[in-house]
């Protein structure tokens, strides 16, 4: 046996798993055909957030008068797109080389090339066959491309793009159409409309962000409209032409033009190189149990490949759990305690049940919601759009869901995830002395509100 564990794919699932394995003294190898960090560091989480920060600064400049700063003529302010992209490249480079350093430092053997799984104990890479006791598959996902006439030609000509190309356009489009109002669609709508692009989202149902809490959906729609984004509901694309597209809604068909059409309608699991394993799959990817094991003993599937949550931190958490299980521990993943975020302006962060699901699942729940406009720090920051909503079960007051829209929502939600991990209640959170003035005081006040409501009934 060459290795105790071979990890296939060096994204946030794979590289975290490999480091964990090595730290637990397993002889470990990782195989990566592209760049370490996978989609997340190279074309996902990090590059989008880097550009979004630039867009946020640009928005501050456009709105500076509100803060008491006068700019004589806004035509003096210009986006230097090349520089923005360069900053993104620099950040990505720093982080990906950091990952490679960490892998080497932890004595993980690195193989660069396409890994072809021969059977559950061997993988071929660059003509060499490596043997191993266990395999962790973390090959990630790729964007779905719909079968719409003209899309293939559009992809070739560069008119149709995926999130990857949207991060390295030669120039900022004047008009961008986004097919799909999920998290990625919403983030790109935020990014480009903040930079001055006229953005249209085409959505095949009557709302965006399908699985989110309805209050989040409603507020996020308002936020996007406020940025000037147009959202076409119950609309589909019939045909993609050279520089425009034909859409269809209940009133019939019409053409709209665009500089680019961004496709963001979900992702499919990367199964290339895994064919020989005969893995059991389901709609979203490779089927796994709570321990992240596939139908083949000793073979684990983590991250976007199993498709439960397409989120980097979930991939990493799964990677650690898979390794711990291989090393003889008995660990399970609890997807209810995995937060999800949107890096819009303001940000959205949520964890646990949304209100409707909570009502269906629990006998009695308490819902407490407060607007950001009731918060001193939010007013001081001049950013008081948003809310915090806490959902607790009535019996013990245990927190089972939280939904936050706030400028720092993504950093705030960790308080709640930690509380849920420790089975904390609204009574606990209401008592915690939150610093003043902070937006996180609203968490405390919403918890107070929940305690009150529970008394009344």
């Amino acid at each position: 046996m060459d290795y105790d564990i071979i990890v296939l794919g060096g994204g946030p699932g794979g590289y975290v798993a490999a480091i964990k394995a090595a730290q637990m003294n397993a002889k470990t190898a990782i195989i990566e055909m592209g760049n370490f960090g996978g989609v997340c560091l190279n074309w996902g989480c990090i590059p989008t957030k880097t550009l979004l920060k630039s867009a946020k600064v640009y928005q501050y400049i456009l709105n500076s008068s509100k803060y008491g700063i006068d700019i004589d003529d806004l035509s003096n302010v210009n986006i230097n797109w090349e520089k923005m992209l360069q900053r993104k490249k620099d950040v990505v480079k720093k982080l990906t080389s950091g990952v490679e350093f960490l892998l080497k430092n932890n004595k993980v053997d690195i193989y660069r090339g396409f890994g072809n799984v021969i059977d559950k104990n061997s993988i071929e890479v660059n003509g060499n066959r490596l043997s191993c006791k266990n395999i962790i598959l973390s090959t990630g996902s790729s964007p779905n491309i719909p079968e719409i006439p003209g899309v293939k030609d559009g992809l070739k000509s560069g008119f149709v793009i995926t999130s990857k190309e949207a991060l390295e356009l030669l120039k900022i489009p004047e008009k961008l159409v986004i097919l799909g109002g999920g998290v990625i669609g919403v983030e790109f709508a935020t990014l480009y409309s903040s930079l001055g692009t006229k953005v249209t989202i085409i959505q095949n149902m009557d709302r965006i962000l399908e699985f989110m809490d309805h209050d989040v959906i409603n507020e996020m729609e308002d936020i996007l409209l406020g940025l000037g984004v147009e959202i076409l509901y119950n609309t589909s694309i019939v045909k993609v032409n050279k520089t425009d597209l034909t859409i269809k809604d209940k009133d019939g068909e019409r053409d709209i033009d665009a500089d680019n059409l961004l496709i963001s309608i979900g992702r499919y699991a990367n199964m290339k190189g895994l064919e020989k394993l005969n893995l059991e799959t389901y709609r979203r990817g490779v089927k796994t149990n709570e321990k992240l094991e596939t139908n083949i003993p000793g073979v684990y599937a983590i991250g976007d490949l199993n498709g439960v949550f397409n989120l980097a931190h979930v991939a990493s958490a799964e990677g650690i759990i898979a390794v711990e299980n291989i090393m003889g521990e008995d660990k399970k993943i609890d997807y209810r305690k995995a937060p999800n975020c949107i890096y819009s302006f303001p940000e959205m962060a949520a964890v646990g049940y949304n209100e409707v699901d909570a009502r269906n699942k629990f006998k009695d729940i308490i819902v407490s919601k407060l607007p950001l406009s009731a918060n001193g720090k939010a007013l001081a920051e001049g950013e008081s759009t948003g809310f915090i909503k806490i959902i607790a079960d009535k019996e013990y007051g245990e927190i089972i869901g939280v939904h936050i829209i706030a400028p720092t929502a993504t950093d705030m939600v960790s308080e709640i995830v930690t509380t849920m991990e420790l089975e904390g209640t609204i009574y606990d959170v209401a008592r915690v002395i939150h610093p003043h003035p902070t937006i996180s005081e609203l968490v405390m006040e919403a918890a107070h509100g929940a305690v009150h409501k529970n008394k009344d009934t």
Partner: protein
Amino acid sequence: KSEKPSLRKKVLATPVARKMAKDLGVDITLVKGSGTMGRVMKEDIKNFHSSDNKKK
């Protein structure tokens, strides 16, 4: 001094577990915790209580 021998050791437990133990009359110091560092979780109280009931 040794009236409550089970209280000699600090018990790590979650707020929900503590409340549930109180409600069900479970002596939390007797429950083996499944959480990190042996923290007693609500699941542990539930399991302890139902196996306790079966014994009776």
